[in-house]
């Protein structure tokens, strides 16, 4: 009987010990504990031979049966199947022995030898099974180690993979930002290239213009010189004419001479028109000369707007204009090529006069022509605005306004170079020119010049 309980105890002890690696649920631990206590109690009872022995013996078989049942029917313990069936023949033989002895001690005497032999076989079976179990356990352990190693490698791979992914993501974003930078640089390059082409075109246009201007200048000089000469001769002739007696023929001659005189005046007028175009063209194509000196911009504006006004008054078709100057008196001196920049002021103011003359001739009695010139210190830049309340500029031609040879002025007025030259000069000062306008209301030319820090 002690043997049975020892089997229970050692099975439970083994189970409890092997739980370290396997992590059995709490329920099983409780079973192990109570089972071991029960086995211990039964062993103590067995040693003391306390009655009723038969009941304790039965309980011992129930306990070992319960332990084996537990081992065979609990999913967590299924791997211990071999161990569970190891003591089974011993328990069976002992149970049979117990039953036979309890029911009929006489029969027991007869079969005792057989039972002993069965006990030996059961023991051999148990040893075999035990060895088998040990082998299985080793295999399981090796498998467990292999699995563990595989898991470790898997985890490592997983880790490396996530590290790699992180690296890839990092690189990808780096490459993306580089791509963006490159795209930006490429765009910039393209824009610069376009500008260069444009400048190249303008430069060759400039050379062409200069060439044409020079070629035209000589014949034009002849036209002007000979028409002047002829006018002089006509003057001499008209001085001589009174010496000839009056006659119908003389009348006719005087009449014809009068026509020639007016024709010559026209030739002279158009000749000087062409001459001023040629001169503008030459001015336009000439390279930048002159130096940039600190200049009192307000004084320059006062002087040249005044000059533009008096020039306009002295020329054909003068108009009445109210010129208002609102100049920022705290403006510091600006580095300018004052010779060039005075042309900017002259051109813009003259342009305003011409635009307003157009509106005036549209016979609007309410209309009073007004030009306002403003300067303002914007910190790192200086703003210069020339605003007129003339007819304004339609949107569709605003962009063309700064192109060479583009003019809205009718007939004999403009060369189409004034604003183009103005723009070139502003650009050579690293400034910008912007045109704001509302048709019928106003046109405002805004110049932004950088303040030099020197």
């Amino acid at each position, binding site marked *: 009987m002690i043997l049975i309980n020892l089997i229970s105890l050692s099975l439970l002890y083994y189970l409890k010990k092997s739980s370290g690696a396997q992590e059995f649920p709490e329920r099983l631990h409780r079973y192990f504990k109570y089972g071991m206590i029960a086995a211990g109690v039964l062993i103590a009872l067995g040693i003391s031979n306390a009655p009723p022995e038969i009941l304790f013996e039965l309980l011992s078989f129930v306990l070992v049966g319960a332990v084996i049942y537990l081992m065979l029917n609990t999913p967590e313990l299924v791997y211990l199947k071999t161990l569970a069936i190891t003591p089974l023949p011993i328990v069976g033989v002992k149970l049979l022995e117990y039953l036979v002895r309890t029911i009929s001690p006489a029969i027991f005497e007869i079969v005792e030898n057989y039972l002993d032999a069965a006990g030996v076989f059961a023991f051999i079976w148990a040893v075999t099974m035990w060895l088998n179990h040990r082998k299985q356990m080793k295999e399981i352990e090796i498998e467990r180690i292999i699995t563990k190693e595989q898991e470790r490698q898997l985890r490592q791979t997983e880790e490396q993979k996530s590290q790699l992914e992180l690296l890839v993501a990092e690189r990808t974003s780096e490459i993306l930002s580089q791509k963006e930078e490159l795209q930006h640089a490429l765009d910039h390059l393209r824009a610069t290239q376009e500008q260069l082409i444009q400048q190249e075109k303008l430069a060759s246009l400039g050379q062409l213009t200069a060439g044409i201007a020079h070629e035209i200048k*000589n014949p034009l000089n002849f036209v002007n010189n*000979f028409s002047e*000469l002829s006018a002089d001769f006509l003057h001499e002739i008209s001085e001589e004419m009174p010496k000839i007696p009056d006659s119908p023929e003389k009348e006719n001659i005087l009449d014809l001479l009068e026509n020639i005189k007016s024709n010559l005046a026209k030739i002279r007028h158009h000749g000087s028109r062409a001459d001023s175009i040629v001169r503008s063209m030459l001015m336009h194509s000439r390279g930048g000369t002159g130096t940039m000196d600190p200049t009192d911009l307000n004084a320059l504006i006062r002087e040249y707007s005044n000059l533009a006004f008096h020039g306009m008054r002295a020329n054909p078709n003068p108009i009445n204009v109210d010129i208002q100057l609102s100049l920022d008196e705290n403006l510091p001196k600006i580095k300018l090529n004052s010779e060039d920049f005075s042309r900017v002021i002259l051109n813009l103011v003259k342009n305003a006069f011409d635009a307003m003359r157009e509106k005036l001739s549209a016979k609007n009695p309410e209309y009073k022509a007004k030009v306002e010139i403003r300067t303002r210190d914007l910190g790192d830049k200086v703003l210069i605005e020339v605003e007129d309340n003339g007819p304004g500029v339609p949107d569709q031609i605003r962009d063309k306004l700064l192109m060479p040879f583009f003019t809205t002025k009718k007939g004999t007025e403009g060369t189409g170079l004034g604003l183009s030259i103005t723009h070139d000069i502003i650009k050579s000062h690293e400034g910008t020119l912007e045109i704001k306008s509302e048709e019928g209301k106003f046109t405002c030319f805004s110049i932004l010049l950088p303040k030099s820090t020197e």
Partner: protein
Amino acid sequence: MKILVVDDERDVEALFRQKFRKEIRNEGLELLFAFSGKEALEILEKNNPPQVASVFSDINMPGMSGLEMLDIIKDRFPQLRVNMISAYGDADNYRKAMRSGARGFYTKPVDFESLRREIGEILRS
């Protein structure tokens, strides 16, 4: 008094003859014309010293330019007064002409009043 005018434009002759009509008629001015530097040098070399009081020459001419001609004239006839006339009123041509010994420098379109003063001066000297 002879004055030589050098210009590749043939109409310069008509222009000068008409402009200085009075001087030619009344003050003994005689205008000679050459239409290239080479032709001008031929005229000058007919007599030594040349019978010409002064030369007025264009700069921009095909073949020999006015400035090249000026150097040759100044080399052979250092006393001869040479005035340059140029459509290119640029500082570079002006400097070159003056360094080569030109007496005056006129830009086109020619201011005939100052030219008349200069010629008047030559006529009186």
